[in-house]
C-alpha cells in the first residue's frame, strides 16, 4: 500500500551529499592527469602513442616540448594510465568543467616536470554564493543530439536523492520554451542537426548552452563519421563545455555552476 512505501522510504537514512564535497570532484570519471614528479619525455611519448584519440599529444613551443592533454577529446579509456609508466594516473580532482573549449586543455613541460599556468578558475563553494549565482532558479532543457545515452544516464542521476539538484533551484523542464539553459549531448548526428537548431531557436534569450561529454565537446569517436556533423559547437553557439565519457554527476554539477559563474563574471 501507498503508506507502506512511504514508511519504507522514511525509515531510510539520509544520503544527500554536501555541495562542497561535489564541486571539482571527478572520482570515477576515468579521466587521467599527469603526475608531474614522474613525467619525462620518454614516458610522455609512450602515453601519447597509446591514446586512441588525439586527446594526448606532443607540441613544441619556443623550443619547449609540451605534453598536451585535451579533456574535450578524452574518452577515459585508460590506455595512457596503463602504459605511461606512472606518469599519468586517474584524476580525483582538477579536470576542468563548464569552461571554454580552450580551457579544457592542460599543458605540461614534458622534460622538466611542471605544468604551464593552468587557466582554471576557482569555484566559490559556499552555499550562499551558489544561491546568489542562481538567483531564484535555473531551468534546464536537456537535448540528446545523438549520444549513446551514457551522458543521459549520468544527467538523470543528478535528480537522485544523493545529488538532489532541486535543492539549488535547478530544474529539468519539459520544453525549451521554459528553459534558461540547454544541456546538449552529442555527437550531433545528421538526423538530429535540424531538431537541435529548432530547439535552440525555441529557447528564449538570454540563454546558455552547455556541451556535455567527449562527443558533445569534440565529436569523440564519431568525429568524421558519414552520419555525424560533429561537436555541439559546430551547430549552435556554446557557452561552456563539460568533458567526460560520460561526465560524473559531480562533474556535471560543477560544470553547470561554473558556466553560471562565468556568465555572472562577464555580465
Amino acid at each position, binding site marked *: *500500500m*501507498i503508506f*507502506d*512505501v512511504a514508511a*519504507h*522510504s522514511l525509515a*531510510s537514512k539520509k*544520503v544527500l551529499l554536501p555541495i562542497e564535497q561535489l564541486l571539482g570532484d571527478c*572520482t*570515477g570519471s*576515468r579521466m587521467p592527469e599527469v603526475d608531474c614528479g614522474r613525467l619525462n619525455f620518454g614516458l610522455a611519448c609512450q602515453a601519447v602513442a597509446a591514446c*586512441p584519440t588525439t586527446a594526448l599529444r606532443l607540441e613544441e613551443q619556443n623550443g619547449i616540448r609540451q605534453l598536451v592533454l585535451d579533456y574535450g577529446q578524452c*574518452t*577515459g*579509456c*585508460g590506455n595512457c594510465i596503463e602504459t605511461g609508466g606512472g606518469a599519468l594516473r*586517474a584524476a580525483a580532482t582538477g579536470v576542468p568543467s563548464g569552461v571554454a573549449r580552450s580551457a579544457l586543455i592542460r599543458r605540461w613541460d614534458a622534460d622538466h616536470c611542471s605544468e604551464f599556468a593552468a587557466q582554471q578558475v576557482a569555484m566559490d563553494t559556499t552555499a550562499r554564493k551558489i544561491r546568489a549565482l542562481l538567483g531564484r532558479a535555473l531551468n534546464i532543457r*536537456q*537535448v*540528446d*543530439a*545523438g*549520444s*549513446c*545515452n*551514457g*551522458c*543521459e*544516464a*549520468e*544527467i*538523470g*542521476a543528478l535528480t*537522485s*536523492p*544523493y*545529488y538532489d539538484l532541486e535543492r539549488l533551484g535547478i530544474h*529539468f523542464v*519539459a*520544453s*525549451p520554451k521554459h528553459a534558461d539553459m540547454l544541456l546538449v549531448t552529442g*555527437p550531433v*548526428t*545528421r*538526423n*538530429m542537426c*535540424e*531538431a537541435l537548431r529548432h*530547439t535552440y531557436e525555441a529557447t528564449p534569450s538570454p540563454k546558455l548552452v552547455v556541451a556535455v561529454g567527449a*562527443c558533445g565537446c569534440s565529436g*569523440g*569517436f*564519431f568525429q568524421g*563519421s*558519414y*552520419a*555525424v556533423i560533429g561537436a555541439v559547437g559546430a551547430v549552435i553557439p556554446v557557452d561552456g563545455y563539460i568533458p567526460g*565519457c*560520460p561526465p*560524473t554527476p559531480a562533474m556535471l554539477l560543477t560544470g553547470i555552476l561554473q558556466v553560471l559563474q562565468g556568465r555572472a563574471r562577464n555580465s
Partner: protein
Amino acid sequence: MSQQGHYSRNSGGIAEALALLKAGNSRLVSLFGSIEDDGTPSVHYLLDAEKHEYRLFGGQVQGVLPSATAITPSASWYERELHDLYGIEIEGHPNLQPLVFHEGWPAGVHPRSGCCNTPVSGEYKFLKVDGEGVCEVPVGPVHAGIIEPGHFRFSVVGDTVLHLELRHFYTHKGTEARMEGMQVPSGVMLAEAVSGDNCFAHAVAYCQAVENAFDISVPPRGRALRLIGLELERMIAHITDVGALCGDVAFAVPSAYTARLREALLRASTRFAGTRFWRGLCRPGGMRRDMAWDEARALGECVAETARDFAELAQKSLETPSVQNRFETTGLLKRDVARALAVVGPVARASGLRLDVRRDHPYGRYRTLALDIPHHSSGDVMARARIRIEETAISARLIAQAIEEMPSGAIAVPVPWQASAEGFSAVESPRGELLYFLRVRDGRIQRCHIKSPSFQNWPALPMAMPGNIIADFPLINKSFNLSYSGCDR
C-alpha cells in the same frame, strides 16, 4: 567455435535460410550485409534453429534479394536497413521506406555503396488513418524528459490510440562503419559507446566475438568478474526501470527511492571497480582490472543490501491499488505477436516466450550454472515489471555466488589478434539478446555487425498500443525500455 553453445557457420545460402524461416521453427536473430573484396554486397542470415543452435546462412546478392518479410515480419527493419545502407533492392517487401536516412540527407553521402547503389531518399510517408474524429499527434524527436531522441506518430480518437508509427535513427552515428579499419583491441571502446547504459554487455559481447574468432578461452577469474559486471548492470537497469514505471504513474516515492538504490550501486562500483558503469574494464582475452577479495566482498554486501531493500520496496509498490490499476492489462503484447516479431529479452519473457541467451546459448561463467529464468504470460506492463523485479533478485544471487566461489588466478590471457579470423558472440544484456558478428583481416576490423535487442524489439512497441489511451504511452514505452542509440547505432 567452441566458446558458445552451438554455432555453425556456412549453414547454407540465402535460399536455405528463407526455406528454414518458412518452415516456421527458426527464429530470425539477425540479418545484415557486408561488402566483399570485389565490391559486391553479401547478406547474412543468423537463425536460432530448434534445440537452440545459432546457424549462419548467406551469400552474394545477385540482382534483387527476395524479401524475408513476407515470411516473417521480424525481417522488416533489417531489410529496410539493407536497402538504405547497401542499396540492395528487396523484392516483395510490403513497406520498403527509408529507415536510417531522413529527409535532407545529402546526396552522395552513402555509407556502403555496393554494386547496385540506389539513390538515397529520406522521404517518408506515415500511414494516414482516416475517419470521423481521427487526429494525428506527433511526438519527438526532442522529448520532454532526459531521454534519447525518436519520433512517434499517434493516430487517436479522443484519448484512444488507433495506430502508432515509429520513426527512429535520429542517433544513427555510423558506428559499424566507424569500427572498420580499427585495430581489434580498440573496437571495445566503440562497442561501449553503442548503448551507454548497457556498455558492459556490449564490451563483453564484442570481446567474446574476438575470443571466439581466435579460439581463446578467458580464465575462470576473468569469467567470474565478467558475470559480476553483467549482472550488476542488469540490476541497475531493472531497478531504474521499475522506478521509472512508478514515476510514470505519478508514484514519486518509489521513483526517488529506486534512484537512490541505483546510485548506491554506481557508487559501490566506483569504489571497487574504479568506474561507475564498468566502462574500460573489459578487454579481449579477459578483464583489465582485478578486484581484491575484500573489495569484492564489500561490493557483494552492497549488492545484497540493495537487492533486499529493492525487493521489499517493489513488493509494497506493486501491492498499491493505483499501481495495479495502471499496470494491469495495459500495453498488452500478445504471445503470437511477440513471436512473429522475434522479440527478445524481458519483453519476450513477459509475453510467454522462453528465451534467454544465458540459458539457451550459455557463455563464459554461465556455462557452468543452472539458471532459473522467470517467465510471465500476461504480456502487460505488470508482467514486464514483475520480470524485472524477479530478475533483479536472481542477479543479486548470481553475484553473491560468483564472489563466494571466486576462482584465483589470471584475469586475462593474451589474444593473438594480429591475424585474420571471423567470430560471433551473443550475450543476454539487460534488454535481451545482444549479438556481435566480427570479421578481422590482418588485425584490423573488416566488418562488425551489432544486433542490439532494441533494434529487434522497437517494432513490437506499436503493436502494444492500439486501444490504450495516449497518456499511457510513456508507461508502456518505459515498460519496454528500449535504447534508441542501441537501435540506431
